[in-house]
């Protein structure tokens, strides 16, 4: 078995004295693990940093074997290391992908979105908004997408102001009535609008976080959401104040 693909490095683990086991989100093969011989050497270790874009060749005798990778760097994202907020974003993205993605199942739209988001980290001031939309896309891709097209109560498509914490459907201000305080506030950013202000992005992350914890995590064995996501939110909040 052999294939060649590009991917985003999610994690690295030492294997024996000189090798490493890496987990990569590849374009055509999804999240896929493999051994990199000499992966802890001075030559290869700097390439194997989470978030790096790699050109990969995977070889194994049988398809279900772990297999071995040969890696070539395509794009390093090491420059993000000096930017604490962007680094927190990178950590949250790689940790959430590692947490959510099933092994060896391609998710091309999510892959392309992830690549675009990682390229935005740091230089663009709007990357927190892109991150919020990426989390929304992650929920969609995992089969837990929010239905924000119309009000679940009245069917109206305007004035959507809340999300039901149970169904993930939008609710208009009129439809919410006296239940408003039990619903999650819906920022315009989750509907594709808004000005991308930090407050609204954080409000949106509270919504996606709720459904990541309520829907996705139980389906994955009730593991807690990665700490890296909480650290990013804390960092964004600190930056705002």
């Amino acid at each position: 078995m052999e294939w060649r693909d590009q991917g985003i490095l999610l994690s690295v683990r030492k294997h024996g004295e000189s090798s490493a086991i890496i987990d990569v989100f590849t374009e055509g093969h999804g999240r896929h693990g493999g051994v990199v011989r000499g992966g802890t050497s001075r030559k290869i270790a700097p390439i194997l940093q989470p978030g790096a874009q790699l050109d990969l060749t995977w070889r194994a005798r049988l398809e279900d074997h772990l297999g071995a990778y040969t890696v070539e760097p395509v794009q390093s994202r090491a420059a993000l290391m000096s930017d604490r907020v962007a680094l927190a974003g990178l950590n949250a993205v790689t940790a959430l992908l590692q947490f959510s993605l099933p092994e060896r199942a391609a998710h091309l739209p999510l892959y392309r979105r992830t690549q675009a988001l990682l390229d935005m980290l740091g230089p663009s001031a709007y990357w927190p908004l892109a991150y919020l939309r990426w989390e929304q896309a992650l929920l969609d891709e995992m089969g837990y997408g929010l239905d924000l097209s119309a009000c679940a109560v009245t069917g109206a498509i305007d004035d959507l102001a809340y999300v039901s914490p149970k169904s993930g459907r939008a609710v208009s201000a009129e439809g919410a009535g006296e239940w408003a305080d039990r619903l999650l506030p819906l920022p315009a950013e989750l509907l594709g609008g808004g000005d991308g202000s930090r407050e609204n992005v954080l409000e949106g992350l509270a919504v996606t976080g709720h459904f990541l914890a309520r829907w996705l995590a139980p389906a994955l064995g009730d593991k807690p959401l990665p700490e890296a996501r909480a650290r990013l939110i804390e960092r964004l909040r600190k930056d705002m104040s």
Partner: protein
Amino acid sequence: MMAKLPGLGPRSARRAVLHLIKKRELLLMPLADALHRVAVTARECTICGNIGTDEVCGICASAKRATGEICVVEDVADLWAMERGQSFKGRYHVLGGTLSALDAIGPEDLRIPQLVARVQAEQTQEVILALNATVDGQTTAHYIADQLEPLGVQVTSLAQGVPIGGELDYLDDGTISAALRARKSL
């Protein structure tokens, strides 16, 4: 047992053991003695986390080391590497690892609360974060900088860039851009 040591496989361990047996008086006995002494006396310094034979290691106990500077390193091997350079005359703080989501290592698993308490108690002027230039290392550095921010202490980190003897052609683009950002006037 020897084959379990880092750098030794079964064959090289067998060769080492045969050599030790051949040089029983010259090597084996002194080595066994030394290992026994280490097993009995080696301990972690209660202040910095370095390894020594007393409750407080030689560096923390030395009156010649500056008290206003603390250099934070990931593990004891990094502390020894810094000491080999002989250019740092302050004191150290060994974290015992880095934050890692994958290995579920959080701040409470490292010696970060002890560092914060130490900076407060010792009236430290500068904390130098000498952590690895990896994603985990730098995530930990930023986390520590956040924790120390309210104390008003100066927090610095090691420079990143072209290593001595390094050729630009062989450097990765991340190192080159870090070196460019940290350029200085000649």
